[in-house]
């Protein structure tokens, strides 16, 4: 099959970008979307032209590296599927395909389809962990965890940090990403001691990183390749409000000395 691509090309962070057209001939339906881009790039390289830069690594939908807007949808038209797991059988012969990077102030473009998602790491740094230094752990079976709690924690923990939620959100909010981590750790007994601190710090960091605020459009849930539920955001908001209230109390009692 043959498709026509309109790809965002941008030489560097401060360069102006634009859409450039490419024809991709001899594409077979079993190819993955990234293999189709490989074929286009192979031709560009042979002609001495700079190939389209895009992030990718596992090509199995788990590392979260790949990410691009395909025809206006984060990761393309197939639900619960990353760009690397999308196959050309989802398109028809003669289709036109628009490919652009994630668009968000907090994710500046580095080159072509490659963006800087360092803000996500900094949100985790703010509190997305359990402080359990190596060697300090008790037996793994010492605290039973109800299967349902473990399963729900796993549902939230499945987030791959790709950034599709931000790209899909009209406000470019990172709420789904942040809430997924807050929910994962908050569902488990191990996450309780730092739960309130975590919610405050992570939400605060999200603001610092210039992500927009959440107005519950729900686009993030639709775009998430791992099916993270928007219910996690309600959980985050609850933890945050509770933490903010109790923290103020704590401050009053403890004073500033």
């Amino acid at each position, binding site marked *: 099959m043959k498709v026509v691509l309109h790809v965002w090309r941008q030489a*560097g962070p401060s360069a102006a970008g634009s859409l450039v057209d490419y024809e991709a001939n001899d594409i077979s339906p*079993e190819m993955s979307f990234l293999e189709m881009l490989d074929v286009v790039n192979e031709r560009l390289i042979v002609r001495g032209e700079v190939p389209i830069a895009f992030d990718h690594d596992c090509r199995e939908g788990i590392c*979260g590296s790949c990410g691009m807007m395909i025809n206006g949808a984060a990761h393309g038209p197939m639900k619960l599927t990353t760009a690397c797991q999308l196959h050309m059988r989802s398109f028809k012969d003669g289709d036109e395909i628009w490919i652009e990077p994630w668009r968000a102030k907090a994710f500046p473009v580095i080159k072509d389809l490659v963006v*800087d998602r360092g803000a996500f790491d900094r949100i985790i740094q703010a509190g997305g962990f359990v402080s*359990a230094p*190596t060697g300090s752990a008790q037996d793994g079976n010492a605290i039973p965890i109800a299967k349902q709690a473990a399963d729900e924690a796993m549902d939230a923990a499945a987030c791959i940090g790709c950034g599709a939620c931000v790209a899909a959100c009209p406000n470019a909010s990172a709420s789904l990403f942040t809430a997924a981590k807050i929910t994962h750790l908050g*569902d488990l007994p191990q996450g309780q001691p730092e739960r309130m601190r975590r919610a405050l710090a992570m939400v605060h960091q999200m603001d610092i990183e210039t992500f927009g605020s959440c107005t519950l459009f729900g686009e993030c849930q639709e775009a998430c390749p791992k099916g993270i539920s928007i219910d996690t955001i309600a959980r985050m908001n609850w933890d945050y409000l509770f933490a903010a209230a109790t923290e103020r109390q704590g401050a009053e009692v403890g004073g500033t000395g």
Partner: protein
Amino acid sequence: MTIKLDARIPAGPLAEKWDKHRFEMKLVNPANKRKYHVIVVGSGLAGASASASLSELGYRVSCFCFQDSPRRAHSIAAQGGINAAKNYQNDGDSVWRLFYDTVKGGDFRAREANVYRLAQVSVNIIDQCVAQGVPFAREYGGLLATRSFGGAQVSRSFYARGQTGQQLLLGAYQALEKEIVRGSVTMYERHEMLDVVIVDGRARGIITRDLVTGEVAAHVADSVVLGTGGYANVFYLSTNAKGCNVTATYRAYKKGAAFGNPCFTQIHPTCIPVAGEHQSKLTLMSESLRNDGRVWVPKKKEDCGKKPGEIAEQDRDYYLERKYPSFGNLSPRDIASRAAKEVCDEGRGVGPGGRGVYLDFADPIARLGEQTIRERYGNLFEMYQRITDEDPYKQPMRIYPAAHYAMGGLWVDYNLMSTIPGLHVVGEANFSDHGANRLGASALMQGLADGYFVLPATIGDYLATAKPDTLTADHPAFREALDGVQARTARLLAVGGKRSADSFHKELGHIMWEKCGMARNAAGLRQALEAIPKLREEFWRDIAIPGTGAELNQSLEKAGRVADFLEFAELVCTDALHREESCGGHFREEHQTADGEAKRDDANFAYVAAWEYAGDGRAPVLNKEPLEFENIHLSTRSYK
């Protein structure tokens, strides 16, 4: 000049070695720890766990990875599980059994003392991960669930759905991020290490290229740790992530670190078969599927074109159950892979090109119900369907072996130090504990054992002998290494040829898969050893790299890695040619029993082959570390 290999295995009874050694090793005074700077290259399970743990101890750490975040290291893709000798199931497991299974599974080519230690600390790993909030699968009673993997008759693999590696890595990554914000780890994402720097015989730093700006820089430290993963991508098509490469360990080899058993590579039996010529990678279907799935091909060649449902039960050959009745579908990987190749070579393979066998879930679905199977393997089934457009609940999966894992790696002693003092190697990057074949769910265990528990204890013994000094990157050794890296980049860019790095990589992969893959013989290996240098010459004449070195340039990154693979492949074939025996993943057709099983030669080959670089264009020097088995009787490995 040959290297002196001293494995420094502590004396005394096996079960007491590690404890005694920990007592005998020197300690660094807590107040002095922050005077030491340790570079960790790699943020996978091994690198991230090591970085976090060293930082918690008080060392200053710099951690490097080539992805845009440490959370994306290739460990994230591990699916099935992680072993630990917890014996929660009361099914007869013990530290000794895990030790025994691992040594036997590795076809008696691993060091007893290392493997025993691995089995000992395995139990602490699970505890550590649970404490970090890793959401392992649980039973209704709230306790940890386990499942079985190949090569074991007990249920000792802990798992988090089909995303065990992801959850373990996120645990280690979060611990790492916690240390970054505390200020004691500095993280360098999108940085590629291109050389290690040796000063006065010790590893004192690295040279990196910033993949965004192209800046080449030197980093000074008191010790360097490589946790840079495996080299299965030397076969081009493999289950590894696209970025996995041999560059870090190969450059260290060229600086004097011995490379252990490079020919020990693992071909995984259950991967989705190749679909077309533009295939860029192969997808693993976790070995855990073999807990329930049954592997078969038609008995008669004529049936291969039929739909699987049209082939009657008595016309199916469940060849693993037939040949290896006691382990059946859970036979170890090397054995299951070769058996698949054998039936396909006989013309009984299924699917395009006849390169596939069925992995069938009809029986377990009938017995346990679709819901149970969905709970156990749902995400793997979905992945299979997404890639092949076939529904494995309705028709059997088609699978075929693919390159997957490197047992070989840089040689290390009991303290995980290479032959270069101060250069430590952890995780898949070292030649490690798996001998000639790794058992399922043991790589995650080893990576985390090295990073959380072994290295943090052993590195102090080295650092205590290395007084902090005022070395800077102005030292001539750093200048020289930096100039070398820049010159090489310039040389690559100057070729101005017509072929992409991928096209060379594919061609190399084809040679390696055909001549040095699941079955090897002397004639084929010699052909490979002729073909590889020719391909390398062509590479340096005709590589095309558009763009410059002073920007994000993915063609340049790839070309650098492929250039290293093109040299390293020769080392793999040289090792494979020299090892005149069959063991584990290394099957030499000349050395097999009448019924096609691997024939080991313990009299002549019970050693680790540690190859030493002797200069470009010179044959590498073979050093041998004899393997002594004091606790396990060397026997013919049988899974019948």
